[in-house]
């Protein structure tokens, strides 16, 4: 196999990368600080990145903290995920107008924007690949998703310090990035050193490195980066054996434990909104009062709402327990029957951003330990 070339980038060389894409009509999105959290938004330069910041996470808890160094990517994932760009939270699918006694439909998604995603983590790439299969595979595809996805240049970053709620090593989706990127960066930071090792993952990525004239990395520089990435796997504070999760959850469907694990659940839907793989959406048709204009709007939906399971006569999942069970079993079990892989990438967002800190990992462990088999 051909050994991929590795390039050396000084920290502020990233600005050259951003400029390279901006001059080619791309919008650059990346992590940035807003409202005391690291969110994904448009960034102008390296100065917009959360330089020297890290996040402290626990169930239902998130705080930013200063680091002892000036690392660019010294934090893990925040409340946003890349799905907000590829699968927008609210999207008008089409508009229809009454014209000369006729009904005319207009496509409103004609913009052909190109995006650069900066700092995509291994778990997030897995989530994007999962959504690729959901929106882009099978008999029915989503043209909006496919168009946006095709216009993404993806700059991935290897995680070297997993967060407190991260468990991607258990889901097999990280911390090392192995595929699905155009460029992969590994940040190396020591007392006297700060640089990135860049590896191309696509022709477009290779072209960028060549055009910008970055030099190839020295062996010792690559070794330092490799050391950090290899050590990351030993730094996880959470893990769970998922090998039998599919069977355990389906066998325990009637286990009274479900009442206990969902006791605190607010059915607010936060876990599904922050989840990078949750794809459910609802379609709403609206008309103006004069009956001249109609719109079809798509919104992120959640299996935690009553409307989600509403059929003639009422909602099927009326109890809190049944909605929590549906979500957790889908993520860690029935997703496999449906799509061939688990719906969880171990990013920990649902644990951090649950207002009351319900913990999917700990709950799965309870079911694994539970002796009740029905």
């Amino acid at each position: 196999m051909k050994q991929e070339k590795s390039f050396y980038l000084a920290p502020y060389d990233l600005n050259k990368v951003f400029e390279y894409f901006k001059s080619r009509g791309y919008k650059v999105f990346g992590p940035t600080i807003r409202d005391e959290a690291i969110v994904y938004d448009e960034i102008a330069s390296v100065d917009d990145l959360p330089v020297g910041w890290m996040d402290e996470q626990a169930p239902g808890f998130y705080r930013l903290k200063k680091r002892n160094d000036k690392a660019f990517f010294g934090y893990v994932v925040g409340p946003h995920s890349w799905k907000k760009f590829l699968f927008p939270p609210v999207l008008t699918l089409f508009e229809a107008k009454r014209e000369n006694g006729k009904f005319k439909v207009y496509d409103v998604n004609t913009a052909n924007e190109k995006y650069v995603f900066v700092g995509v983590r291994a778990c997030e790439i897995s989530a994007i690949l999962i959504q690729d299969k959901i929106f882009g595979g099978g008999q029915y595809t989503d043209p909006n998703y496919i168009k946006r996805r095709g216009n993404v240049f993806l700059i991935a970053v290897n995680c070297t310090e997993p967060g407190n709620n991260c468990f991607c090593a258990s889901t097999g989706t990280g911390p090392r990035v192995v595929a699905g990127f155009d460029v992969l960066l590994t940040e190396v930071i020591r007392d006297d050193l700060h640089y990135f090792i860049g590896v191309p993952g696509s022709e477009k990525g290779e072209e960028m490195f060549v055009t910008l004239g970055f030099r190839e990395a020295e062996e010792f520089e690559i070794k330092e980066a490799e050391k950090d990435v290899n050590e990351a796997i030993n730094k996880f504070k959470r893990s769970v054996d998922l090998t039998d999760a599919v069977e355990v959850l389906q066998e325990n469907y009637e286990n009274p434990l479900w009442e206990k694990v969902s006791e605190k659940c607010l059915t607010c839907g936060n876990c599904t909104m922050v989840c990078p793989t949750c794809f459910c959406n609802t379609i709403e048709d609206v008309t103006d009062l004069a009956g001249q204009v109609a719109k079809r709007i798509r919104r992120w939906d959640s299996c935690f709402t009553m409307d989600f399971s509403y059929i003639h006569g009422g909602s099927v999942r009326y109890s809190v327990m049944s909605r929590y069970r549906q979500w957790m079993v889908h993520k860690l079990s029935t997703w496999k029957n449906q799509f061939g892989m688990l719906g969880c990438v171990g990013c920990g967002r649902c644990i951090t951003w649950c207002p009351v800190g319900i913990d999917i990992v700990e709950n799965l462990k309870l079911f694994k330990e539970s002796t009740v088999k029905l």
Partner: protein
Amino acid sequence: MKVKKPKIAVWKFASCDGCQLSLLDCEDELLDVVGAVEIAYFLEASRATVSGPYDISLVEGSITTPHDAERIHKIRKVSKYLITIGACATAGGIQALRNFKDVKEFISIVYANPSYIETLNKSTPIADHVFVDFELRGCPINKYHLIEVINAFLNGRKPNIPTYSVCMECKRNGNVCVMVSKGTPCLGPVVQAGCGAICPSYNRGCYGCFGPKETPNVFALSEHFVKLGLKSADIIRVLRNFNSYAEPFRKGSEAYER
């Protein structure tokens, strides 16, 4: 052929008039509203009135006097659809705070001549007195919701008014959760969407203007507030607002009175 426009009436009970004002506040859409319906009775807008019956009655305010308790029945009789608008009409409003105390005591303190005051012990929502076809939440209501509800009733379809949590709107807006990132108590997870998550968008916790959402787990959230450092009295204050008398909030706050 001239089609007869549906007649709409707007009625006021104990309230601040803010929800009625939402109708006048429609501005850009007001001409369309007037084009689609005949505003037959709306004293805040015009003293010219058209007699009933009415196709839609919008009712603002809560029932607080014996006279109003009678009047709402008359309105129900002349209305094909009765839609309540706002926290007063759907939950008793801010004035329902009296429901937790002794009204007679207030009267004797506040008024020089208490004998002139004729009031009920409790401020109650319209649905406690007559059948209500649809309850539109909010303090005040969202004007686009009002147009949507009128539109839906005129066209015989279900209004697109969500009953899920404020969190859903908050997250779709891309907001950072104030409770998780700052420890700010926020009612969002138990409150119905509709405001567009205004307060969390400005870094404040939700005050619950739209009342309890579907299947609200108030106890679990209150217990979490305790962990955030709130005392029983704080939790009572948080839950006793515009929608204090809505059952989930009432039970939630009463639990901390003990």
